[in-house]
């Protein structure tokens, strides 16, 4: 809730003010006739916007769903698999419609450091680049790779593909740092590009299974399913799921985060207790 509201508010107010000022300006400056026509145009546009979802609802070019809306990270967590599936109105496959699935995890700031040789002898961390918003998880899969389906600028605009991710960095500016982010995140299994293709069943059903490794960050994930027809995105469906720690893992992480002093004392006491119990157990036997 608190996350969505700030994002929604500026959008709505910006749209509202620009509309009002535009109408106001044209009314004051131009003659009555043009003013009426402008108002009529606006009314027509509003009608279209209102009617559009209803028209879509009748046709429904694309429906999609997730196998689960919550991934629980317990102490036994070794990773999970997320199934994205759905169906389309028109047949999918070569020559027909194509499907792209994108999953984006919560973003976090990341520092990438390059090792340099100091004193001609030992390797130390040298220049660093700071990337502000790096998705902690990113996976893209399609019936075909995204670069085959969409024009380059559309792909870059929508961030479809690892090389199209908007990574803004401060600090060291060498291109090697961006490549290093891609390499490190891919190696850790947190970034996936076309790991498995979207499978088609019965020409109108599609599904893809995406692996979530054990190191997936917790938080809100967004899943986008895009319907591509003749190199254009014609429909999209957005869904979300959450990754949360549960049980003991959650309790430990929460206490460590919210009440570090209590957690520290607890760690000291429990370790001492374990040592004491151990000495008693082994003295008897």
């Amino acid at each position, binding site marked *: 809730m608190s996350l969505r509201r700030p994002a929604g508010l500026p959008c709505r107010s910006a749209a509202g003010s620009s509309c009002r000022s535009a109408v106001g300006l044209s009314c004051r400056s131009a003659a009555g006739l043009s003013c009426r026509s402008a108002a009529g145009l606006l009314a027509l546009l509003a009608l279209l916007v209102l009617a559009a979802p209803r028209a879509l609802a009748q046709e429904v070019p694309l429906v999609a769903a997730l196998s689960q809306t919550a991934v629980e990270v317990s102490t036994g967590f070794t990773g999970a698999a997320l199934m994205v599936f759905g169906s389309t109105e028109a047949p999918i496959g070569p020559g027909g419609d194509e499907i792209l699935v994108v999953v984006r995890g919560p973003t976090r700031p990341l*520092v990438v*450091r390059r090792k340099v040789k100091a004193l001609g002898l030992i*390797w130390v961390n040298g220049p660093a680049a700071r990337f502000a918003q790096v998705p902690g998880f990113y996976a893209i899969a399609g019936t075909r790779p995204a670069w085959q389906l969409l024009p380059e600028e559309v792909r870059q605009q929508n961030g479809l593909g690892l090389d199209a991710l908007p990574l803004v960095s401060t600090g060291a500016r060498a291109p090697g740092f961006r490549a290093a982010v891609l*390499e490190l995140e891919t190696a850790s299994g947190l970034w996936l590009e076309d790991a498995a293709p979207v499978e088609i069943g019965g020409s109108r059903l599609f599904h893809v299974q995406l692996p979530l490794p054990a190191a997936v960050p917790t938080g809100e994930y967004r899943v986008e399913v895009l319907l591509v027809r003749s190199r254009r995105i014609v429909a999209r469906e957005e869904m979300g799921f959450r990754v949360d720690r549960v049980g003991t893992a959650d309790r430990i992480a929460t206490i*460590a985060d919210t009440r*570090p002093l209590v957690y520290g004392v607890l760690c000291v006491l429990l370790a001492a207790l374990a040592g004491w119990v151990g000495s008693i157990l082994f003295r008897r036997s």
Partner: protein
Amino acid sequence: MQVYLPIAEMSVDALLLVGIGFAVGWLSGLFGVGGGFLLTPVLILIGIPSPVAVASGANQTLGASVSGLIAQWRRGNVDARMGTVLLAGGFAGSVAGVQLFALLRRIGQVDLAVSLFYVVVLGTVGALMVMESVRAILRRRTATRRKLHEHFWMHGLPLKIRFRKSRLYISVIPPALIGFGIGVLSAVMGVGGGFMLVPAMIYLLGMPTGVVIGTSLFQVVFVAANVTLLQAVQLGSVDLLLTMLLLLGGVAGAQFGAAMGTRLRGEETRALLGLMVLAVAISLLWGLLRTPANLYSSGPAL
């Protein structure tokens, strides 16, 4: 059996951790040290992030040393007065050490600092121990008697106190300084410092060997507790689950090691410990010298 570590945020084989705990506990029981100097590098080796390895290593050392301390206390082998002086220095040192660690983490040099500290400290201590014990083994053959302890400039310092258990009348400044140094090292390296404290007490302070192990455990337990607390509060990098799994194996291993240690002679034990310390130092030095497989590394921005 995989287990998810909530603070390290990764999944590790639980049996592997218990096994590491057992092996390190066995060695530490054998040599009468906490074993933190072996544990932290091994944890880093299996992929635990350095800050978590250091903080959890200190926490594990605390648990492992408690059982040893209880046993030594019962036998009256703890010089509590000397321990308290060492501890006062140790607390100040560990506070300073955690600040240093936080600074290193901000500038991204934790891995380098931890490795360098290990190479320098372990290399020096290991070499000294091997040399001393080899000399002792040779001396045993020739059987010449040594003075109980020698007097030098250190004994002219003010603030003298009588340490009855240690049969010493010396200034509190040297033990407090030693305690401070060990405190700094234990915060940065995630060790209790027993392997440095024991030789320091014997050679620098001239304490009798009988009370050295007990008194060092006294200092180690409290300094490790302080480091654990500070790391948890300031950096939030103590992984309780990791500590507990290590302790599970460690406590058992320490008992087996201690039982075996009684069958080895003092000089041989010290020579072996010295060699092991040297081996760890050399392997870490190699890690710094060789060309890394990947020049780039990433971490969370602080």
